[in-house]
Structures are given as C-alpha cells and as structure tokens.
C-alpha cells in the first residue's frame, strides 16, 4: 500500500502535463487531489504497516549488479512518509496562487514529492540513490523558473551542491558494493557485511558527508539559505521541510548502518560540525535583513540538531533526531509559508527594515498569528513538537558529548533571539505606542485577505505541530522499535544504542 504514495505522485505529475495548457484550476485540483491521496495512502499504509521493518514490494531490477526494486519501511520511514504527505498537501495549498506555467509547476512539484517518497521507502541502495538523484532536477527547475530574486544562481548552486553530494554518495556506495563482494545493493545485506575498519574509515566520511551536504551540515550549508530564499514558497517549504531530511535520512539509513566502525572514528568530528552549524546558523540568522534568510539559516541551525542527534547513537538521541526531522519539516514549512506566501506575495518585500513600516501585525493578523505560533514551535517552546525533539537530542548528546550539549543550548537561546527579532521587526514594529492609535492609511489599499487554502494549510501544520508536541507517543512508538531491527546490529555492536 505504501508504495502507492510514489506511484500516485508520479502518475499525477505525468497526468498534469497532459492537461490543457490553460486549465490552471484543473491542475491545482488534480495536484491537491494527488497530494491528499498520497497523504491518505501514506497514513493508512503506515498504520497498516506498523513499526516493524517489513518489505513492501520486491522485484529483481538489475540482476547483473544485484540491484533490486526493493521497497520496505520501518517506523523511521513511516514518520518521514507522513511528513512528506503533510508537507506536500500544505505546499500545494500555499501555491494556490501560482499562475505562471501552473501545470508544469505542479507536475515538477509532484515529481519531487514522488522522488522523496521513493527515497524514504527504498531499501535497495541503488534504488534509494536513484530516487535521491531524481529529486535534484525538479528542485532545480522549481527554483529557477518560479523563484524570486537571484533564482538562477541559487538553483544552479543548489543543483551543483546536491550533485557533488550525490557523487560522493555514489562513490561510497559503489565502493561498498564492490568491497562487500556480495553482488548486491540490498541495504540489509550490506549492513550485515562487516567491512574492514580501514575501509570504513574513509568510506564513512565520504558517504556521510555526501548525504550531510543535503542536510545542511556546516560548512557545506551555504546552498541552503540562498536556495530556500530564492525558491517559490512551496519549493522552499519542501526544500527545508523535506528535502533536507533526505540528507539526514541518508546519513542514518546508509552511512551509519553500513559503516559503524567508521562512525565511531568520525563521530566527534561530525558532531563538532553539527554543533557549529547549530550555533553558526543561529548567529547568522540573527543579523539577516531578509526575512526568508532568517528562516533559511534557522533551518541550518535546526538541522544541526538532527545531525547531532544522529551522532549521539543513543536511542533517545536518535529518536529525537527523527522526531526533529518531522518537527522541523512541519515548522519550517509553516515559516516559509508565512514568509513566502502570506507576506511576500502580498507585500513584495521580505526586507525586515521595509516590513517594519508595514504594520503587518495589524494588516495581516492571521499571518502574524501563524508566524508567532510557528516561531514558538521553532524556538523549541514546550507544547510544540520542536521541544520534545530537541529535548531528546540534547539528552542523547549529554550522554555522549556533554560539551556539545551545552553549546547547543546556547544555540537554543540564540534561536529565541532571532525568532523574536524576526517576529518583532516583521509584524509588530512600527506602531510606536499603545495600541490604541488608529491604523494609518498610508499603506492603503489593504493587502488581499488571507485566502481559504492558506488558512487550511496553516491550520493543518499548526495542528500537527501542537498535536505532536503534546502527544508525541504515536510517532515515538513508530520510531523507537525501528532501532531494534537487524539493520542497526552494527551500531549496537559498536556500543551505540
């Protein structure tokens, strides 16, 4: 059943291209229908599938290389599949106003979604890589065609970074395939193979780094803020919300399970980079003038938590990392939605100094409220999903890297600072004293009202982040048992978990 998430998305992407060129409404509805169907299938399939590791579909694909078309899922995949579904639906709701080459937009968008589903469900490394690479092309076009200022540069940078990352991954995978001598690309089979330490010591950093580039690992994160800011709203929601998770997911699913010894040797180094990302991302976010850059750098900072959590190797830290992937996916989506769709599409600026004068808190109260909620979730306030996730990551980090945990704590405080600054400047500045003065009319006409799709999308995402923040059990009950599967045997032997 889960496999249909992939097929539905790709099929809809194809169907969209067959629509009449002027049928924008049809394109939107079809895209929304496909995304909702994908989400529904994902949720139902996930519940039906349960937390254990089990195959969804398996056929021989390239026998010469031992590559199978092997789709499977465990709890981690399920969480991320559901995230993808949610982000997809919300993204389409927030792209309702796309009017330029609409069907191509949604077609590429759904192709990207399909590829992402594919990555999360692939248990054959080659298949995983194929989906991983498929995602690059729609990303490029989504940004380069529908993006804002500096879009082509950003798109090219993003594509090249991604491609360099995947080249590293491919190199590592080929080496792992050949070194194992097993004539297979099956994840489980290769994870069972004990690679010699000397091999792991170079293969691990190569593969990990390859994936981590997409996860925004400092100092290879520079594609992220530029890419996110230049991208159209839905694409930045997906990029920050889901595509960055592909990288983190690859780190966990491939690099760490295949090369536990290499991980042990390199853990400290990558942990330090993750922490550097947390703090650096937050610091840079603190001085940005472009609201979207603030959110972009905050993503770098939050993804640092994901990577840090992965490297803790404790069940708490790992489950925190996966939960943080989910949480950040939702929250970043929400933030980008407010900035890109609700604010930028109406005000045509994202410059904080210009927004100061626009008194958006009054003129767009819904946007302000959504941004405040998203900001609170982003800064990790209790009651929102980010808190449970970051707390677990930090607890995990305490066990392994106490010093890093402390520094990451600084990152959290900085996170509060930049989020408040953004909220303040973008929405609540410019009205000098008490709130009684009438709204001046210099910025009339008023901005177009927040539309229904936007409200639906925002409410959906806010509801999810609050629900997960208050009741994370369902997700944790999926995540935790996953680490008991044989995939993670290597990590357990190495003393982790």
């Amino acid at each position, binding site marked *: 059943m889960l496999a249909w998430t992939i097929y539905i998305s790709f099929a809809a992407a194809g169907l969209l291209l067959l629509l009449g060129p002027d049928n924008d409404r049809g394109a939107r509805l079809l895209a929304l229908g496909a995304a909702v169907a994908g989400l529904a299938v994902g949720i139902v399939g996930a519940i039906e599938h349960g937390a254990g590791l089990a195959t969804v579909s398996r056929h021989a694909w390239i026998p010469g290389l031992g590559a199978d078309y092997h789709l499977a899922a465990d709890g981690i995949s399920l969480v991320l599949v559901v995230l993808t579904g949610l982000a997809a639906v919300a993204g389409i709701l927030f792209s309702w106003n796309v009017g330029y080459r609409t069907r191509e937009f949604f077609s590429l968008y759904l192709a990207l979604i399909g590829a992402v589903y594919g990555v999360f469900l692939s248990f054959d490394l080659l298949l995983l890589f194929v989906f991983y690479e498929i995602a690059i092309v729609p990303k490029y076009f989504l940004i380069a065609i529908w993006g804002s200022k500096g879009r082509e540069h950003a798109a090219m940078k993003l594509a090249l970074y991604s491609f360099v990352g995947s080249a590293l991954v491919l190199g590592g995978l080929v080496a792992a395939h050949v070194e194992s001598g097993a004539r297979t690309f099956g994840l489980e089979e290769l994870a069972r193979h004990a690679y010699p330490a000397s091999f792991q010591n170079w293969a691990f950093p190569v593969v990990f780094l390859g994936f981590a580039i997409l996860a925004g690992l400092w100092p290879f994160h520079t594609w992220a803020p530029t890419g996110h800011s230049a991208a159209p709203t839905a694409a930045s929601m997906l990029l920050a919300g889901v595509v960055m998770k592909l990288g983190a997911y690859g780190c966990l699913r491939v690099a760490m399970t295949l090369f536990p010894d290499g991980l042990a040797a390199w853990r400290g180094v990558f942990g330090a980079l993750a922490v550097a990302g947390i703090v650096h991302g937050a610091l840079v976010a603190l001085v940005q003038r472009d609201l979207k850059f603030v959110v972009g750098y905050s993503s770098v900072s939050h993804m640092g938590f994901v990577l840090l959590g992965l490297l803790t190797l404790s069940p*708490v830290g790992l489950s925190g990392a996966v939960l943080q992937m989910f949480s950040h996916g939702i929250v970043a989506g929400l933030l980008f939605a407010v900035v890109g769709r609700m604010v930028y599409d109406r005000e045509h600026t994202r410059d904080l100094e210009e927004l100061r004068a626009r008194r958006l808190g009054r003129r767009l109260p819904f946007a302000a409220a959504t941004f405040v909620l998203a900001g609170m979730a982003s800064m990790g306030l*209790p009651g929102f999903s980010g*808190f449970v996730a970051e707390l677990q990551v930090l*607890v995990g980090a*305490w066990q392994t890297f106490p010093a890093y*945990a402390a520094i990451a704590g600084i990152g959290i*405080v900085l996170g*509060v*600072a930049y989020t408040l600054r953004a909220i303040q400047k973008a929405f609540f500045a410019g009205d000098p004293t008490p709130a009684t003065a009438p709204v001046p009319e210099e910025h009339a006409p008023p901005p177009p009202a927040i539309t229904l799709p936007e409200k639906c999308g925002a409410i959906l995402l806010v509801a999810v982040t609050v629900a997960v923040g208050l009741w994370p059990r369902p997700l944790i009950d999926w995540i935790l048992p996953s680490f008991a599967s044989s995939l993670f045997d290597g990590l357990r032997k190495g003393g982790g978990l």
Partner: protein
Amino acid sequence: MNGFPAITLLTATPIVGALVLAFGGDRGERRARATALGFALLALIEALVIAWGFDGKTTAIQFPERHAWIPTLGVEYRVGIDALGILPLLLSALLVPFAIAVGTTPPERPHAYHALVLLLQAGLFGAFTALNFFHWFVFWELSLVPAYFLVKLWGGSERRAAATRFFVQTFAGSVAMLLAMQAVFVATGTFDLPRLAELGRSGALARALETRLHWPGVAPASLATLVFAGVLLGLAVKVPLMPFHTWLPDAYSSAPTGVTMLLTGALSKMGVYGFLRILVPLFPAQIRASLGLLLGLVVLTIVASALAACAQKDLKRMLAYSSVNHLGLCLLGIFAAMQPVAAGPTWALERATALDGVLLQMFNHGIVAAALFGFVAAIERRSGGLVGTHDFGGLRTVAPVFAGLMGISVFASLGLPGLNGFIGEFLVFKGSFALAGAATSVATLGLLFTAMFLLTMLQRVFAGPLDERWKTFPDLTRAELAAFVPVVGLMFALGIVPGLLLRLVDPGIVEFVKRLGP
C-alpha cells in the same frame, strides 16, 4: 475524589476559556472580560474545592494522576498536590480573577488579551501541580509565552525592549536549567521529581552524576556543582535573585497593570516554588557547599532592591523593586533552612518555622503585591497613565476610601501585625535568625528601607496639598470596591487567623524538614 482528575480539570478550565475567547473573535471589551472572569471564577471555585478536599494532616501527595507520556524520556503526565503546591495553587486561582476584575481591559483585541491571561493561569496551575520535571517545564515555559505577548502587545512605551529582554533572559535561564536537568536525566534515567528528590536526599544523585557523566576537562566531582548551577540559574532569573533581576523592573513597569499583578503576584512564585520543589530536594549538598555565596546574594537582593526602590520616581518601578525585596525574604528563609545544624527538635522547629514563613510569605506577598498594583492600575485609569510618585499629592482628601484601602495594603506589605504580611515575614525572620543570624541581621536593613519607601510613597501620593489637576479624582467605583474589598478583607482575615493557611502546610513542611538531613 479518588481517581477523579481534579487537577487536570482545573488546568483545563482556563485553557478552554482561552480557546473560547481566541476563537470567539473580537466582540468588545465587556464581553471578553466577562467571559474571562467567568472562567477564572470557575477555576477559583474548583481550586477552593480542591483546597477543601486537601487533607493538611497527611504528607502524601494528594489528588494524584499518573499516565505515561513520552517513554523515551521517562516522561509521565504526573500531577498532584502537596504542602508545597497548595498555597501557590490557591494564590493563582485567586489572583487571576482579581487581576481581570481590577486591571484595565485594553480596547485593542480584548479577546486575545484575556485569552492570554487565562493561558498564563493554565501555565501557573500546571507548574504548581506537576510532579515530573518535563511536565513542569512545559508549563513553566507555557506561562512565559503569554506573559511575553501580554507585555509586548499591550504594554507601555518601552514594551518591546522590555518584553524581549524579559523573554530572552528568562528563556536563557530556562535553557540552562533544561540542560542541567537533562544531565540529571542522563545520569538517573528519570524526570520524576519525587523520585529524584529521594535520590538527591540519599546523595545517590550526586554520585550518579559523578559516575555516569563524562565531561572532558571537568572533574567528575564538580559536575554535580555545574548541574546545580544550571538549575539555580534558571530559577534565580525567574524569582529574581540579584544580579539576575535586570529584566524585571522594565517588564513590570511596561506591562499592562493587570498583567503586572500576575507577574509579581503569581509568576514570580514559580521561581520560589522551583527552589522548594527542585533545587532543595535534589541538590542539598551543593546548596550547603555554596551557602555563603547564596546567602550573600539573597541579602544583597533584599537590601539593594529596597534601596533601589527608594530611588524610584515611578510607582510601578518602585513596587517592582519592592517585590524583588519581598521575594528575597522567601529565598532567605529557604537558604537559612539549609544551614547545617545539629540534629534535634529545636533546629527542626526553626527550619519548619522558616519554611512555613516562606510559604505564607509567598501567598501573602502575592495578594498584597497584586492589590498594590491593582491600586496603581486604578490610579492610572484616573490619571491618564501618570504613575510618578511626584505627580500626585493630597489624594486622601478627594478619594478617602481609595487612600484607606491602599494604605491598608501598603501596611500589609510592610508587615504590620494584624495584617497578613506580618505573619509570613515574622516566621521567616524568626526561623532565619536562629539559623543564619548574620545574614538575617543584615537583611533586616532591607525591612527598614522598605518601610521608608513605602511610607514615603503613601505620603507623596495621598498626603500633602492636593494637586490642582486631581480636584476631580474619583474615589473607588462600586465595581472596584467589589474587587478590592474582599482582597483587603482577606488581608485582615489571614493576618488575624494565619492558621487558616498554616493548617494546610505545616505537617507537610515538618515532613519536608525531616528529609533535609543535618
């Protein structure tokens, strides 16, 4: 009431109210205020029922509820009340309706304002009943958010800077505490506060921190101290303990007065409560090791804040510093009780006295400070926002009832016998003198200065020649009287019959003291 989720119901009441208000939309000030007041009174009734059902004689945790929440983190939904929590809980239930009734409802988005106030109350209820750190922390932070927005959106001229400073400083403290408690969790595998308290008492906690945590470059033995420092920081910012108080005067004076009532009356008690609930049980040895420093800071807080209050020309800022001063007394009692003593009933009695005093002082200061800020709010409404001490004079003649009631409150704040402020301060000083004489002696200086500035204020505002501007200064309205009179009555009642409250807490405190060790 066995098995009945009384506390959950209590916490949920204001949340429901907040949701009703938030989704109900803007329907005018009166309606928003009435709705909020309704929910707050409902919560007050529930709290009173709980207090009625609270058995002061047993030391067990009452009205317990316990459910698994986040298993990876050992997080449970565990609530219950004991002697430490009952008074702050009652206080929160009392103050919110009072603040709603007395504070000025802003004309701008009144529904949001009141929704946030109710949310704040939910945070307070949650924090005073939570028995799991995680759960406690959720509400601790939850109360911070509405407070931030209340200051930021409806505050005075400096509100933005004040709100941000308030939020960031408190949050930084919270993060320090969170990190420290994570270390505790990593070492012990539990966030359960009663369980941690047992570990802390037996010294197992410190040992676990020593053995289970490895932090390169830090001696294992000093890790416990580091963790202790983190928790201390989080709590000290909230109370506040000098020198972590810098957010407070601005926040209190910029906040809308109704909110200031809650900030000083209830929110600051969360910090004190945190000392009693977390810091003292978990880190007795560490507190004792740094007792000199801590007492020094407390004395500094008490004296310096009183002096600072003397120098203020703005009623709100003056009262803000006065609050710092009074909360300093609470901490004085707590730290004095931690003074190592020989075993024996005498010392245990002194300790219990001091801690009883702390709890009463928390409650009484909450009421008195809230009332004082309430009066300031009333003045503000009449003066069009002026709250300088020099802006007024002779109000006694035009508003005698106002002057009388506010005077009573000021005297309660001063600790005049017969009023409720007296008994708490008295018990704190009595216990502390015996336990930590030197520090307490210096701290009494603070009392002196407090008397000085409070009386000066009374004099400047109400006595002397009447300023021309205030010829028509109206006396208390009927609605205001309806709010103030019961509270002032309460001051008398508790001043005369302190046993009403002591009855609830004393057995629990005696037990608490027993567990403090030598």
